[in-house]
C-alpha cells in the first residue's frame, strides 16, 4: 500500500499528537511513551532529538497534546496526562529540555495552543472544564476561563482576531473568548448534540469547523451571529479536523474510533469524501498540513507517522457506483444516473491508459495531477442525480401477450386437441405465432388420437411412441406444409449440440413434401403390431381422413400466405416453397407486418421493440435450414423406414417446449403439459421431473409477479408434480370480512367493528341467525331454516323481496347442503378450498351474489402472511 511519494516512520509507541514548527521543516510527535522531533528532509524523516530521556521519566513526559510555537523556534508545550502543562526548550543545553511545568489544572489537559502572535502566551483546555492562559515569561497563569462545562476538548486561537480563541466542550457547546477577558465569553452556542472533540478556524474565512461524536463536522460562520453553513456527515465520531490550506472548501478529518482513514471533504458535498487516505492501520490520532495543500502529516495509534502526498489520495467517488438501473416485473425500466457525470479521466502521467482499468480505481494514487484537479473542480457539483423511468406504452405492453395467453388459455376440461385448438387461437390472437404453431401441432396430434372412442391410456413411457407428427398431412398437403414449416423454422433455435442431430432429423421430416412421407409411413405402420393402441388410432385416421376438422391448418396457411408473398398457394407450388422462401422473404421489407411471421422472438411474445430486426434477421436463416433439410430428410426416411420410431412427435414436441423454455417462455411448456392431461406421460421420457417442476414453479412465480393469483392457483391445482401441488396445502388461511366496509370480522356473530352492521340476518324475521343459515344459492338470501321452510311453503319468491324464484324447499338436498353460511362459514370455505385446493382463489362457492351476502371471504395468501391480499 505504501507508495513512493508517501513516507512513513514507525515508533515505539503510538503518538497522540503532532505539531510542526513554523517553517514546516520539523515535526514533533508526542504520546504516552514517545516524544520525538523529526526533521523532514528530502522526503525522509530523520530523528533530530528524543525528548523522552532522563532518569526519572514521570508522567510529565507522557503527553496528550503537543504544540509548537509559531514564533519561537525552540519552544514546545505539551499537555501531560497528569494535568500538567509542560514547556520545553529545544535550545536548552543538556539532555533534558524541560523548561517549566505548570501544574495548575486539576485534571487532564486535553489541548494546548500557542498564541499566534504573542510568543509568551499559551492557552490550555482541560478536563476540569477550565481554560488557562499561561504567561511563559512570568511562568504563571495569567487568566483562568471558566467554561461552565464538564470538560474542554479543544482550544484554538483565531487567525483573524489576534486575541480571540474558540473552545469546544463535551456538552456540545462552542465558546468564543477574548483572551484578555476572563469574565465571560464573547459567544456561546450549542453546536452538536454530542461532545465536540475538535475545532479548527478557517485560514481565510470567519468559519469555524467543529467535529463531534455525533459523526458530523459542522462549519459555522462566526462573523456575526453564529450560523451553520455546512454539515458533513461521516461514518464515525470525528476526532480531528484541519482545513486544507489554500482550498477554501476542503477540510481533512479523522475519526476518533472505528475508522482509520483520513478523509478530505469538500464541504459543499457533505456525504462523500473528496479524497481518502487509508495508509493507517489503526485510528488516526492527529493530522497537520505541512503548509501546503498537497502534503500533510498524520500519526496513528498503529505507532506510525506518515507524510501523505495528496497525489496518493484515493477518491471514493470514482469507485462509488454512480448509476442504478432496474427492470420491473411490469417491464418498466428505471435508471438513476448522475446529471453531471465526472469528467472522463485523461491518461495519467505515468502513461497508463485509463481505459484499460476503467474508471474504477480503488487503489490510491491512480490519478494524474490534471485528472485530480479536474475531479476537484467537478466534484462538488457532481452530486446531482436524476431518476428516469421508461414505461412501455400500455397498448402494447411487453407482458401483455403473456398475460393475455395466461388468462385465455384453457388447460382443462376438454380433450387435449380441443384445448390445443383453442389455445392456438389464443396465441395467434396475440401474435405469438410460434407458440400457436406448437398448439396447432398438438391439436393435430391429439385429435387423431382421440378419434377412436376413448383415447387409450398411454402405456409405459418408453414403450409407446406416439403417432408421428406428419401423418395427418396428406389430404391437405399445402396447408399442412405451410403449417409445419414454421415448426421447422423454430428448430434451429435449439442450441445444444447433442440435440442438433435429432433436430435435423425431425425437422427434415417435417420439411418434406408430405407426399413423400405418407407412403413409407403406411408401409411401416401396418406391420408394427406391438404398439397397436397407437397404430389403430392412426389407421382409423387414415381410413377416414375427411372426418377431421382441418380448419386450423388452413387458417395457419392463410395467415402465412402474405408473409411469403406466395401468389398461388397450391400444392405443387408449395413443394418448392422451402427453396423459394429465402429470396422472397429477404426481399420483403423487414418491417412489414406479416401475420405469418414466425420469428422466434415474436413467438415468445416479447419483442415489442425488436420486431423488425428480428424478423429480418430470422427468416433467411430458417430458410437456409429448410433447404438443407429438404435434401437430407427424405433420403433418411426412405432409406431406413425401420428407423421411423425416431419420428415420434414426443421428442420433437419435448424439444420444442424446451426450446421455448430456453427462450424464456416457460408458459408454453407448462400449458402444453397441462393441457395434455394424461397424455403428458408421453413427454416424460424427454422432460425429466425436475425440469417439469422447474417449469411449473417458474410459471407460477411469473403469474404471481403479475398478480394473477387465480391463474397461479389453477396451475398449482392442476399440477401433476406432487411437490408443486403440495404447495397449495401450505399456509392457507381463511378469514371473513364485512361485506359493507371490508373490515375483517371476528369469529362468531359479532357485528362488524367498524360499521356495526349485523350479518347473517334472517330474511324473514330480520334477526341474527345463530347456527344453521339456510339460503338460496340463486339469490343468496336466506335465514333461519324453519322460517325459510315455512316461507317457501307459501311462496315461491324470495323472502327478501328480490324477486328471485328461490329453490329452497323444492330441493331438500340442495337446501341442506347449502345451509352453511353463518356459523359454519369458515368450515364451508375451508371445505371448498380443500376441494378446490385454492391457495388464492376466488371463492366460487356460496357467494355467487357477493353484494347481497353479508360475508365476503378473505383469503390470506401464503404469499402474504403479512400482506393480506384480498380476493373478492
Amino acid at each position: 500500500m505504501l507508495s513512493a511519494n508517501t513516507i512513513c516512520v514507525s515508533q515505539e509507541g503510538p503518538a497522540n499528537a503532532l505539531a510542526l514548527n513554523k517553517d514546516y521543516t520539523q515535526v514533533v510527535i508526542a504520546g504516552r511513551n514517545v516524544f520525538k522531533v523529526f526533521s523532514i528532509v528530502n522526503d525522509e524523516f530523520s530523528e533530530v532529538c528524543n525528548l523522552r530521556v532522563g532518569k526519572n521519566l514521570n508522567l510529565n513526559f507522557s503527553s496528550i497534546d503537543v504544540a509548537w510555537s509559531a514564533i519561537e523556534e525552540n519552544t514546545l508545550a505539551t499537555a501531560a496526562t497528569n494535568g500538567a502543562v509542560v514547556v520545553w526548550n529545544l535550545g536548552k543545553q543538556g539532555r533534558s529540555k524541560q523548561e517549566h511545568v505548570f501544574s495548575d489544572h486539576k485534571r487532564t489537559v486535553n489541548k494546548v495552543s500557542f498564541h499566534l502572535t504573542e510568543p509568551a502566551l499559551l492557552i490550555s483546555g482541560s478536563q476540569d472544564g477550565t481554560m488557562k492562559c499561561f504567561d511563559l515569561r512570568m511562568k504563571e497563569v495569567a487568566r483562568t476561563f471558566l467554561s461552565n462545562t464538564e470538560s474542554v476538548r479543544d482550544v484554538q486561537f483565531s487567525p483573524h482576531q489576534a486575541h480571540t480563541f474558540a473552545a469546544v466542550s463535551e456538552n456540545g457547546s462552542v465558546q468564543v473568548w477574548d483572551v484578555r477577558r476572563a469574565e465571560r465569553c464573547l459567544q456561546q452556542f450549542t453546536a452538536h448534540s454530542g461532545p465536540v472533540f475538535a475545532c479548527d478556524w478557517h485560514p481565510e474565512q470567519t468559519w469555524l469547523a467543529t467535529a463531534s461524536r455525533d459523526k458530523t463536522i459542522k462549519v459555522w460562520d462566526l462573523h456575526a451571529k453564529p450560523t451553520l453553513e455546512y454539515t458533513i456527515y461521516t461514518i464515525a465520531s470525528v476526532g480531528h479536523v484541519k482545513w486544507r490550506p489554500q482550498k477554501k472548501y476542503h477540510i481533512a478529518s479523522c475519526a476518533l474510533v472505528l475508522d482509520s482513514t483520513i478523509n478530505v471533504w469538500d464541504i459543499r458535498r457533505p456525504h462523500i469524501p473528496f479524497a481518502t487516505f487509508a495508509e493507517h492501520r489503526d485510528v488516526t490520532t492527529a493530522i497537520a498540513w505541512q503548509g501546503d495543500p498537497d502534503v500533510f502529516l498524520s500519526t496513528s495509534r498503529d505507532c506510525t507517522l506518515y507524510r501523505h502526498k495528496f497525489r496518493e489520495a484515493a477518491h471514493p467517488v470514482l469507485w462509488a457506483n454512480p448509476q442504478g438501473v432496474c427492470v420491473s416485473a411490469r417491464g418498466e425500466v428505471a435508471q438513476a444516473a448522475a446529471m453531471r457525470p465526472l469528467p472522463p479521466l485523461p491518461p495519467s502521467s505515468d502513461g497508463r491508459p485509463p481505459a484499460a482499468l476503467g474508471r474504477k480505481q480503488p487503489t490510491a494514487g491512480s490519478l494524474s495531477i490534471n485528472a485530480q484537479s479536474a475531479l476537484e473542480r467537478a466534484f462538488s457539483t457532481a452530486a446531482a442525480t436524476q431518476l428516469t423511468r421508461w414505461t412501455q406504452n400500455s397498448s402494447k405492453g411487453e407482458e401483455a401477450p403473456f398475460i393475455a395467453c395466461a388468462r385465455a388459455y384453457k388447460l382443462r376440461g376438454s380433450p387435449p386437441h380441443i384445448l390445443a385448438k383453442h389455445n392456438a387461437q389464443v396465441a395467434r390472437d396475440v401474435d405469438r405465432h410460434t407458440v400457436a404453431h406448437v398448439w396447432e401441432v398438438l391439436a393435430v396430434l391429439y385429435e387423431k388420437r382421440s378419434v377412436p372412442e376413448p383415447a387409450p391410456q398411454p402405456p409405459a413411457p418408453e414403450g409407446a411412441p406416439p403417432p408421428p407428427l406428419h401423418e395427418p398431412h396428406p389430404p391437405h398437403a399445402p396447408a399442412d406444409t405451410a403449417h409445419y414449416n414454421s415448426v421447422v423454422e423454430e428448430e434451429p433455435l435449439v442450441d445444444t449440440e447433442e440435440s442438433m442431430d435429432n433436430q435435423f432429423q425431425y425437422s427434415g421430416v417435417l420439411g418434406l413434401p408430405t407426399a413423400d412421407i405418407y407412403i413409407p409411413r403406411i408401409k411401416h405402420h401396418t406391420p408394427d403390431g406391438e404398439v397397436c393402441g397407437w397404430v389403430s388410432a392412426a389407421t382409423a385416421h387414415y381410413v377416414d381422413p375427411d372426418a377431421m376438422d382441418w380448419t386450423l391448418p388452413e387458417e395457419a396457411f392463410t395467415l402465412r400466405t402474405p408473409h411469403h408473398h406466395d401468389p398461388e398457394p397450391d400444392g405443387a407450388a408449395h413443394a418448392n416453397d422451402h427453396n423459394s422462401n429465402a429470396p422472397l422473404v429477404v426481399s420483403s421489407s423487414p418491417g412489414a407486418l406479416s401475420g405469418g411471421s414466425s420469428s422466434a422472438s415474436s413467438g415468445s411474445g416479447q419483442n415489442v421493440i425488436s420486431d423488425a430486426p428480428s424478423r429480418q434477421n430470422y427468416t433467411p436463416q430458417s430458410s437456409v435450414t429448410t433447404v438443407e433439410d429438404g435434401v437430407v430428410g427424405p433420403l433418411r426416411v426412405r432409406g431406413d423406414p425401420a428407423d421411423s420410431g425416431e419420428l415420434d412427435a414426443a421428442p420433437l414436441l419435448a424439444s420444442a417446449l424446451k426450446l421455448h423454455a430456453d427462450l424464456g417462455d416457460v408458459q408454453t411448456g407448462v400449458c402444453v403439459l397441462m393441457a395434455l392431461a394424461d397424455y403428458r406421460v408421453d413427454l416424460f421420457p424427454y422432460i425429466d421431473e425436475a425440469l417439469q417442476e422447474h417449469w411449473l414453479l417458474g410459471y407460477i412465480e411469473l403469474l404471481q409477479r403479475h398478480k394473477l393469483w387465480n391463474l397461479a392457483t389453477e396451475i398449482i391445482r392442476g399440477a401433476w408434480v406432487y411437490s408443486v401441488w403440495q404447495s397449495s396445502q401450505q399456509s392457507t388461511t381463511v378469514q371473513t370480512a364485512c361485506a359493507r366496509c371490508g373490515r375483517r370480522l371476528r369469529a362468531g356473530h359479532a357485528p362488524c367493528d367498524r360499521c356495526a352492521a349485523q350479518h347473517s340476518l334472517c330474511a324473514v324475521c330480520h334477526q341474527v341467525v345463530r347456527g344453521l343459515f339456510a339460503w338460496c344459492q340463486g339469490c343468496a338470501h336466506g335465514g333461519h331454516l324453519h322460517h325459510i321452510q315455512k316461507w317457501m311453503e307459501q311462496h315461491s319468491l324470495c323472502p327478501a323481496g328480490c324477486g328471485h324464484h328461490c329453490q329452497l324447499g323444492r330441493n331438500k338436498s340442495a337446501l341442506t347442503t347449502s345451509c352453511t353460511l353463518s356459523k359454519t362459514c369458515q368450515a364451508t370455505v375451508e371445505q371448498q378450498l380443500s376441494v378446490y385446493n385454492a391457495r388464492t382463489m376466488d371463492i366460487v362457492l356460496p357467494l355467487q351474489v357477493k353484494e347481497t351476502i353479508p360475508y365476503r371471504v378473505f383469503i390470506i395468501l401464503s404469499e402474504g402472511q403479512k400482506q393480506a391480499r384480498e380476493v373478492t
Partner: protein
Amino acid sequence: MFETQTVVVDHKDLIHDVAYDFYGERMATCSSDHYVKIWDLDENGGWRLSASWKAHHGSVWKVTWAHPEFGQLIATCSFDRTAAIWEEVGDTTVPGTERGLRQWVKRSNLVDSRTSVTDVKFGPKHLGLLLVTCSADGIIRIYEAPDVMNLAQWILQHEIPIKVSISCLSWNPSLSRVHPPMIALGSDEPNTLSNMSVNDRSGNGSNDKVFIYEYSEASRRWTRTDCLVSVQEPVNDLAFAPNLGRSFHLLAVATKDVRIIKIEPIIDSTVAPSSGGTARFRSEVVVAFDDHASCAWRVSWNVTGTMLASSGDDCCVRLWKMQYLNQWKSVAVLRNERGEGGNGSGGGAGEMAVAPRAHTAYLKMAAMANPGHMPWH
C-alpha cells in the same frame, strides 16, 4: 414505444441503486445522502414518495427487496460498514397518502463487516429468508433468519473469505431443485499487472474477477466451484437472469463492457456424480457489447430473462434482447435528455449553472439496420 418520465427524487447526492419489488409496484432508491426512499405506484401510473428516512451514516450502496411472502422487507448496505434490514410497519393495505408517509423500522443491523459493505441480496424464496452481503475486504457473509416472524434475529451462517475486494453479487434465482444454491461474485480489484501499487492481497497472480460459489448440502458449505476466466477486468455489477425453466444459466456482467455469460452445468454427462457433487460448468461468453463508452456500471434483467438493461458511462440505458439463443441485439437505447447536459463539458462542469429540470425527454431508437447477421451456425 417508451415513455420517458423523470421522477423528482430529491436525493441530495448520487443515487447508487434503484430496485423494484417483486411485482414492480414499489420502488426503492438509495443514495450517498444516507437516505433510502420508497416509492409507490399511484393510480395514474406515477411514482409517489411513500417513505424516506436516513438509513445509514454513510453512502447507501445497494437496496434490495425481499420476496413479498416475507412481508414488506428491504435490506440496505452502506459505506458505514453495516447492512440493515428494514420492515414496513402498520397496515400495509392502507395507502400511504391517508396517513402521510409510511413507517419503516430497522429490524436488524448487521455489523460484522470491518469495511464498506458493497452489496446485499436476499436469497431465493425457496431457500427461506437468506441474506448475503459482501464487503470491500472480500468477505462474503450469509445470514439466515431462522424464524421469518422474528426479523430481528439473523444468524451468520457462513463467512467466506474471497481475498479480493468484492463489489457485487448475485444469487442464482433458479427454482429448480437440480441447481444447488449458487452465488456469483464480482470483484472490482484492479488488475495487478499495473505497474503501481502492487497489491499483495491478490498475490496469486490471477486476475479472475467473477467467482461462482455453490452450496453443497452434503458438506453444508459454500465452495468455489468456478472462476469465469473470461472476465479479467474489474467488475461493476453482475446479475443472473431469472431462470424459469432453462437448463443453463445466464449471467450478465458489467465491466468495461457488458457481457452475457452462459453457464451450463455439466452434471450427468461426462462428470460422474462421484466427483463429490462439485458440479462443474461450461461457461461461454455469449456476447460482449462495448457500446457503453468506457465502462458499464449496472445490468438488470427483466423477469423472464429475455431482456437485459445495462447502463454505463455514456449515460444511456441500453436494452439487449435475445433474438434466439446466443444471439443478442441492442433493441433500444434509452436516454434522458437531461443526462446529456454535463456530459460533454467535462472539467468545466463545476461552473455550469444548474439548468431547470426537464420533465420530458426523448428516446432514440437504436439503428435498426442490422446488415451483418451472423448465420446461426
